[in-house]
């Protein structure tokens, strides 16, 4: 084993990597100064205040009839009954499961492999991978889906080219299929997997991999038996997030599935919800409650698996410095894969949007179309400066929410991973919002904010709070995955040296998991800025994010105008996000020497 002494100063009680688990030192350390219990209580209160009122209104909504004036009526189990009595329930369920598993596999496969190559090898395309993730998360969701439909649709360039080549008169690729849905949804979620796994890989200890290599294991065996095993909590965390999110997704199921007559569990629910004014949220709420149970079961298994957290500690008192793999000739495969990811996640959809934005009306990609090139749509964007005036407000909202979430979840994850009394509750509470449909959370937020003594309703702060609630689960998984890697011996060392647990958190743990914190922050910042369904409920004359203002075009504007607005916005988000990311890397590098 390689020995480095960079962090070995305090490892007097850490003879081996599992040594401290029942050691006397640890017990005394926690007891001697246990401000942590008070923190658990305070955090539980904060999270409780954030999560329980919307949860209560979700459960209540699922059990009550809605009157025509939008009030809650009599008690009913009808909403639940309807989910099960759907004529095609089993077919929908099967489709949903295939969709959700396929999406998770594709997203984690792509995101994970790219993350590994980027972080653990010497591929020269690292920044392209980060750029792909940032651009794709910065692109408004509906536009991203539209771009893929435009490319793969019956009259799209892919089918046109294939038909010309094969002489077929019928379209060859049918994007309105379960496969098409999985591909698009998988692409949408792969940046989440990439950012989370890249953060985890960056803090990974290369010692075990090197030990495996020195013991004669080849790269594949090392990957399977060492790298992947160490990554298990992070992989599972991503899997849980993506599985639950894709089970309740509705953009792809309705935009891609409905034209192809492919029914998922959510299809009926979301169509039903739009049917009346005001929308009847009971059915959707009941479905969310069912999903909540499902998520709870998944999380239960997840938490059992990571209970023996020591298995995943890769950052210990011994030297830790991730060293890139030397892949030899295999590296070309890696480079090619990272490039392919860049092309699929960024270049292709962005090119489709660019094409659309330069057309006077939507038309397929062709040489003929080139004659019609126009900057008219961009002219429109820059002459409606008011959209751009909303930009800074949007950034304040998203940055505020991202900061709030990461602050709460880093503390919570630390306490939960260190298994402080009661801290398991924090993890549970922070995960609940994963199942809230945007509009349901929006209604709950309106009610809560209107009843609050502080005049928050209609202000930017309403968005900060609501986005923070919505994206808590993501922050929690990013923070936990990072935290699980850090062996407690480092904090114990701090304790032995007289530092309090909080000091150890601040001076040791947070710097060590900074990649995960930065990734989580970035993810939330990007996705909160493109949120529409929740945001539209909270929008007021005084506070409106760009996404809401932009999407009124979706209802009535031409797709070409929307593409131009979307691209300009994506470019602005990308510049801001890259700037912030670079700044964070700078701080990290100067403070940590990573």
């Amino acid at each position, binding site marked *: 084993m390689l020995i480095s002494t960079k962090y070995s100063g305090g490892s007097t009680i850490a003879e081996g990597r599992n040594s401290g688990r029942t050691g006397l030192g640890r017990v005394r350390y926690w007891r001697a100064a246990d401000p942590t219990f008070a923190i658990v209580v305070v955090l539980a209160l904060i999270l409780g205040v954030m999560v329980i009122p919307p949860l209560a209104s979700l459960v209540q909504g699922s059990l009550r009839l809605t009157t*025509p004036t*939008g009030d809650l009526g009599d008690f009913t189990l009808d909403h639940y009954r309807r989910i099960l009595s759907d004529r095609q329930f089993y077919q929908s369920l099967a489709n949903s499961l295939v969709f959700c598993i396929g999406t998770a596999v594709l997203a984690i496969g792509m995101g994970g492999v790219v993350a590994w190559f980027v972080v653990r090898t010497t591929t020269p395309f690292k920044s392209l991978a980060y750029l792909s993730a940032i651009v794709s998360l910065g692109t408004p969701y509906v536009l991203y889906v*539209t771009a893929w439909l435009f490319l793969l649709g019956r009259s799209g360039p892919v089918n046109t080219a294939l038909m010309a080549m094969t002489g077929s008169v019928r379209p060859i690729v049918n994007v309105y299929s379960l496969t098409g849905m999985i591909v698009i949804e998988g692409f949408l979620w792969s940046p989440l997997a990439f950012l989370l796994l890249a953060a985890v890989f960056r803090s990974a200890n290369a010692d075990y991999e090197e030990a495996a290599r020195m013991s004669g294991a080849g790269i594949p065996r090392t990957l399977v038996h060492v790298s992947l095993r160490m990554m298990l909590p992070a992989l599972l965390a991503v899997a849980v997030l993506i599985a639950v999110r894709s089970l309740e997704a509705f953009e792809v199921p309705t935009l891609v599935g409905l034209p192809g*007559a492919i029914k998922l569990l959510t299809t009926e629910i979301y169509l039903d919800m*739009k049917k009346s004014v005001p929308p009847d949220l009971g059915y959707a709420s009941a479905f969310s409650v069912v999903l909540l149970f499902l998520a709870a079961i998944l999380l239960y298994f997840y938490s059992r698996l990571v209970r023996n957290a020591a298995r995943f500690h890769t950052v210990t008192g011994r030297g830790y410095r991730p060293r890139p793999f030397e892949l030899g000739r295999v590296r070309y495969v890696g480079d090619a894969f990272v490039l392919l990811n860049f092309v699929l996640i960024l270049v292709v959809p962005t090119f489709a949007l660019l094409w659309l934005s330069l057309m006077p009306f939507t038309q397929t990609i062709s040489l003929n179309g080139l004659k019609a090139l126009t900057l008219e749509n961009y002219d429109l964007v820059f002459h409606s400066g008011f959209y751009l005036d909303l930009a800074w407000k949007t950034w304040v909202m998203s940055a505020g929410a991202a900061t709030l979430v990461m602050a709460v979840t880093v503390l919570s994850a630390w306490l939960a991973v260190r298994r402080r009394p009661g801290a398991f509750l924090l993890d549970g509470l922070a995960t609940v919002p994963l199942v809230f449909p945007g509009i349901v959370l929006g209604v709950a937020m309106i009610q809560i904010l209107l009843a609050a003594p502080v005049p928050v309703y*209609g202000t930017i702060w309403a968005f900060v709070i609501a986005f923070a609630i919505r994206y808590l689960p993501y922050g929690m998984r990013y923070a936990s995955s990072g935290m699980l890697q850090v062996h407690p011996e480092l904090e114990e060392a701090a304790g032995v040296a007289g530092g309090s647990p909080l000091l150890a958190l601040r001076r040791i743990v947070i710097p060590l998991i900074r990649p995960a914190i930065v990734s989580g922050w970035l993810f939330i910042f990007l996705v909160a800025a493109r949120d529409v369904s929740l945001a539209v409920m909270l929008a007021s*004359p005084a506070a409106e994010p760009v996404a*809401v203002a932009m999407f*009124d*075009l979706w209802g009535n504007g031409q797709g070409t105008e929307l593409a131009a607005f979307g691209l300009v916005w994506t470019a602005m988000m990308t510049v801001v996000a890259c700037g912030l990311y670079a700044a964070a890397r700078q701080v990290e590098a100067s403070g940590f020497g990573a």
Partner: protein
Amino acid sequence: MRIGSLVASAVLAWCLHMPASCRAADAALIAAAKKEGRVVWYTTLIVNQAIRPLAKAFEEKYPGIEVRYSRADSGPTALKILNEARAARLQADVFDGTGTVPPLVRAGLVAAYLPPTAANYPPALKDPDGHWICTNLYFLTPGINTGLIPRETAPRTLQDLLNPKWRGRIAWSSNPTAGAGTFIGTVLRRLGEDAGLAYLRSLAKQQIVSVDASSRAVLDQVITGEYAMALDIFNHHAVLSAAKGAPVDWLKLEPVAAPIQVASLLKDAPHPNAGKLLLEFLTSEEGQRIFAAVDYLPAMPGIAAKVPSLKPDGGGFAADILPPEVLAQNTDHWMMIFKDLFR
């Protein structure tokens, strides 16, 4: 059910004795509105296209009264107002939409107020109880890709849509108030429940493709050639795109569904006088001309659309006007048929 032609014939009458439509609003009302200094408008219109020019013109005409607006679809708009009212913290003064008003009337939130300009509007375009007045019209018709369907072979009647050659080539939006819902509803209203259902059953065999996007987005897909035809698109969208060179046209295939955009004053509006003034402005000749200028279809008889043939009187077609109550009462039923036959 020739409401459209009624409207058309009424046009002349109103044109002839249009009251001094530029008549200034009541001075006392203006003074009271200026004291309030602001009007808050929850709207379903498109900000960039309609709201900003209207708000700008209003602010220029009544300096000192700021128009503040918030844009959302009918559902969220109704939810917001209902919840604000329940908490007794209403923010909005005026709201609009094609189907937003009925639940709010039922909740007792809407003022019975019609501006003086209402005198210029036919009964079909204003509520007898005074809860709403129409600001602009929509006509939902089929739209075709003219590259795929030459105009002369395009369907002219409901029966023509049943021709097997259209199987799998027609799409519609799953939207209840501008798409599948309104198409089904208008067929049932025209043919009667039994004959209508029989027709829809035959139509279902054509494998109409449902797209869960706005009619505008479905029309864009028709323009790219994804589908040859879309049912119940907004006819003015086809004209706007055709003007830019897109291979698209709309068909005067009757019955034409006409959900109407109406605006209302809230009973507990925080700025009631400014709200009244805004309603008056929107339905005034001046306001209506702005609707026309930004390619919307003005409601006031006698004010032509930018492309006059888009309105029944200019285009010579009959429209079935679907007032908000009709939408509210029947959408559930229409969407049930949609689910049963077309999904």
